[in-house]
């Protein structure tokens, strides 16, 4: 819909008036042959009812509508119009083409968003400020958030249920596979080979680690440290069938004879450099896998490998 005529300073040429809304053309388009011009919204509305020119009833479709000539657009942009918010006290008179910019920052706009100054922190349209009640608004905010939290809780319970269900099924599946493995030797061979391959594949995804200070090795890491490393191993895709054993083998009580006491460790220090160690990202720890370390002697390695946690010195 066009601009109301009485908002303009001085006379407006009849050519700049939309024959549909009788306002000054807003965003004008013209019919192809007769060149009658209309506001975009006005002519779109009319053509949606019947595809004719509203002045002379020639056939026109919306695809045939086109831009009005530059001269007409220039005439329009030079018209001087009172701000939309004149009824609210704005006295600005602007060229039509700068009206939009002004409206975006006009301080008389009754809908201009303002922060509440009584401390609730909400942003409110200016004209609603006088009826604004912080407590009431915040209450309704709390109410909707409470509803959201309730919904999340319901979701969470539902997810937990699904996860438990899946865990149970997985457990069943594992037991089933174990049973097949025990009862069928060729199956056992296949499964073992698959597991070995999986460990190899995982090992290849890990980066080589360099241990600068073997003396920083913690031979009796506590529960907290162990849980942290276990978590990281899970995150970087450690095959589940070796995870428990690997983590058991992070403590000297499960280490091979060549490592299991301070005395043997001191005796075998020279051999440490031969270990192929893999990084545990972001942690001062390395994974030493049996498959990477077949060159090490039996008293320096255990299946499926071991974890060494350090106080410092890992790169």
């Amino acid at each position, binding site marked *: *819909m066009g601009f*109301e*005529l009485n908002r303009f300073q001085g006379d407006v040429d009849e050519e700049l008036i939309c*024959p*549909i*809304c*009788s*306002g000054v053309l807003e965003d004008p388009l013209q019919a192809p042959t007769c060149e*009658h011009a209309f506001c975009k919204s*006005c002519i779109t*509305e*009319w053509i949606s*009812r019947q595809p*004719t*020119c*509203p*002045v*002379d*009833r020639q056939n026109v479709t919306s695809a045939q509508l086109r831009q009005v000539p530059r001269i007409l657009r220039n005439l329009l942009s030079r018209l001087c119009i009172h701000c939309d918010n004149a009824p609210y006290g704005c006295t600005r008179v602007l060229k039509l083409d700068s009206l939009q910019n002004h409206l975006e920052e006009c301080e008389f706009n009754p809908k201009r968003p303002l922060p509440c100054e009584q401390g609730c922190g909400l942003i409110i349209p200016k004209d609603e400020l006088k009826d604004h009640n912080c407590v009431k608004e915040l209450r309704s905010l709390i109410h909707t958030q409470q509803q959201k939290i309730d919904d999340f809780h319901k979701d969470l319970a539902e997810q937990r249920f699904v996860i438990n269900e899946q865990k149970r099924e997985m457990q069943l599946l594992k037991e089933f596979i174990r049973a097949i493995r025990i009862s069928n030797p060729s199956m056992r061979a296949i499964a073992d080979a698959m597991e070995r391959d999986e460990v190899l594949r995982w090992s290849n995804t890990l980066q080589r680690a360099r241990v600068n200070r073997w003396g920083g090795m913690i031979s009796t890491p506590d529960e907290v440290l162990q849980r942290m490393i276990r978590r990281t191993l899970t995150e970087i895709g450690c095959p589940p069938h070796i995870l428990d054993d690997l983590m058991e083998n992070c403590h000297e009580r499960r280490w091979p004879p060549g490592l299991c006491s301070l005395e043997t460790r001191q005796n075998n220090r020279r051999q440490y450099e031969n270990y192929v160690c893999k990084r545990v990202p972001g942690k001062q720890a390395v994974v030493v896998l049996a498959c990477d370390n077949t060159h090490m002697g039996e008293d320096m390695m255990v299946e499926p490998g071991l974890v060494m946690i350090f106080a410092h010195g890992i790169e």
Partner: protein
Amino acid sequence: MANIAAQRIKREFKEVIKSEEVAKCAIRVELLNDTFTELKGEIAGPPDTPYEGGTFVLEIKVPETYPFNPPKVRFVTKIWHPNISSVTGAICLDILKDQWAAAMTLRTVLLSLQALLSAAEPDDPQDAVVAKQYKENNEMFQITARHWTNVYAGGPNINKDCDDKIRRLADMGIEEHQARVALSSYDWELERATEQLFS
């Protein structure tokens, strides 16, 4: 009411008031409420027609969707015309239906109605009885239309013969307008009109 309709009617109202037709007393329009939804129109009967000298009042209702839909217009003044119902005042005119165009105004509507009074379209009738008379007994049609203009629209041409016949029926207890309709419908033959009224 939608903003656009009010803006249009405001402007058109001024347009009619300023128009040269008003200066010639041919058309007039008056606002009935300040929401611009109801207006009263008036058109003068065109010269050299049976409506000459009469003033015809129109009821104009502006729909919410104006000007995308035409105004609803009806004759309040009773009129004898093939395209206007002698009972309800409903009008059969294309521009008030599917030939409406959004750029048309109250002024063009009133002028089109005036043109309709000058040139009836008996093949697209609103009132079948009137249309039949118009085609088959045009002389009688002229007399009837002129008589109705005199009685209802303040036209100058008194028809003594018609008035007498109506008085005869009125004496029999028939209401005047009912009597006029019956006589008009039967080409002013008193006997047939009476027969129809008492059957």
